[in-house]
């Protein structure tokens, strides 16, 4: 099947280095300490952060002087094209762990000892790149909750089909069987927190795909920063009034 036509357009009309449309909004769940909606094309994710709050299960606490970060990833029953999903399948558990470790690396947990930070992610629509959308949404929600972080954790995916590196795969491109590289970066510190890849790639190609994904991450970081600054301006107006 042709994923990139000879003119260089993909199935949805994008070029190889174009991302899908991003919609990001902060403060959507009023009951949560911090929350955000993040959409990448048709993939829609809601993140809600509760914390810092009292630790509910002391047996999970490993480091006494650091905050405990918990993460739960779940997909709505109607989120994918084929019918129902089992609520807590292995993929959800794996993603919960991956996202927790990514966010834990960028939260300054030593500033909030004896407390717990809960990050809940709900996927409302899945069209490829849910992992990345969740990390981006979690970053926005943590910032909205005022939790101190080293940097914004942003994530983007890239793949390799029809001998072309492609940025931000959707579901059809992802299931094509080519490589799928997901990268999570702390942009200001220029450090990689998450790197996952399935399928085989020659080393040089991998470097190209990785570089493409990093570029995508930087673009998302810009966007997230804009959203947060706009949000802060709004808060300032309301406070001054």
């Amino acid at each position, binding site marked *: 099947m042709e994923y990139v036509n000879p003119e260089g357009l993909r199935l949805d009309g994008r070029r190889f280095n174009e991302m899908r449309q991003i919609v990001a909004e902060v403060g959507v769940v009023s*009951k949560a300490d911090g929350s955000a909606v993040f959409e990448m094309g048709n993939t829609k994710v809601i993140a809600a952060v509760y914390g810092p*709050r009292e630790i509910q299960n002391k047996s999970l606490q490993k480091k006494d002087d650091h905050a405990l970060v918990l993460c739960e990833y*779940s997909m709505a029953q109607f989120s*994918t094209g084929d*019918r129902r999903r089992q609520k807590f399948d292995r993929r959800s558990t794996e993603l919960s762990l991956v996202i927790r470790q990514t966010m834990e690396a960028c939260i300054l947990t030593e500033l909030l000892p004896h407390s717990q930070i809960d990050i*809940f992610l*709900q996927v409302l629509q*899945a069209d490829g790149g849910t992992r990345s959308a969740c990390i981006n949404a979690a970053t926005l929600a943590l910032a909205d909750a005022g939790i101190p972080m080293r940097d914004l954790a942003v994530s983007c995916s890239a793949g390799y089909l029809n001998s072309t590196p492609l940025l931000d795969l959707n579901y059809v491109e992802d299931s094509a069987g080519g490589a799928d590289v997901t990268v999570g970066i702390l942009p200001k510190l220029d450090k990689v927190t998450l790197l996952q890849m399935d399928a085989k790639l020659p080393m040089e190609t991998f470097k190209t795909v990785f570089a493409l994904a990093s570029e995508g991450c930087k673009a998302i970081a810009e966007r997230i920063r804009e959203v947060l600054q706009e949000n802060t301006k709004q808060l300032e107006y309301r406070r001054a009034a």
Partner: protein
Amino acid sequence: MGLPDSSQDLSTEMEVDAFRRIFPLRFFERHLSESLRPDARPLGKARDTIVNPGLVSTADGSALAKIGSTTMLAAIRMEVMTPSTDSPDEGCIALEFHMPPICSPTVRPGRPADAAPVISKRLSDTILSSGMIDLKELCLVSGKAAWMGYLDIYCLNADGALFDAALLSAVAAFSNLEIPVVALNDNGRIVAISGGKDEDNASIIEKKAVNKEKRKLTLKNIPFSLTCILHKKYILADPTTEEESIMDTLVTVVLDSSDQMVSLYKSGGTVLAYSSAVKSCVELARKRAKELKQILGEMDID
């Protein structure tokens, strides 16, 4: 309670927010005696309600309903199944209400919220008993194939009156629902039609009217609900979570579009409801049903 005097003394010295947290009942009663609530609503008024259909593109029908901050997202997926032998002409609806941990600080991961299965059952009973949906419309081939509708309602923000918002989102999702086009192929199996192919069209049997185009369900007797709190001699319509946590007697009245009562629900609580209180609740529900009917009507035109 041995503290009433001390709260009188402290109320003049304390900040409003602190008083609200420490003496919540007195805080609310101060407002109720002026026939107001802390968010400046009159006692019988519900919060601003918004309904947005068709948000989930992967579902056959969906809607988002917001009453104040309480947000519910409902989505329906249709699947073909074999009907049971005692009702070969009828399809089926399976309803599930989820409260994911994002919606409220009281919901813990791994432990489903207490309210979720209760609301799930009440919703299911209300929708089936109201007769809103004629299950015969969901039939494809009598005795062999019928539609099963999986309705999933997710609470995205829990701020009181969960049942009302969930019912509204379910009704809106049903009115947004478009049944997909299918055909019976040579093996006797139902297959979905994506484009219009001639060989598929040729094998459609007597269900032509069903399968030609995406069709909507006819909804009659649409149920509308209103939850009220009874407290001493006051009746508060459409409570928030804060109000529900302080005053525990809730009454839910469900009326349908022809003004008949579909259900009345009062599950205990410290306040006993005299018939006058129940009548007032029904009156408030009647007014609310008119508002909701108008909101749904506006949504359909879009």
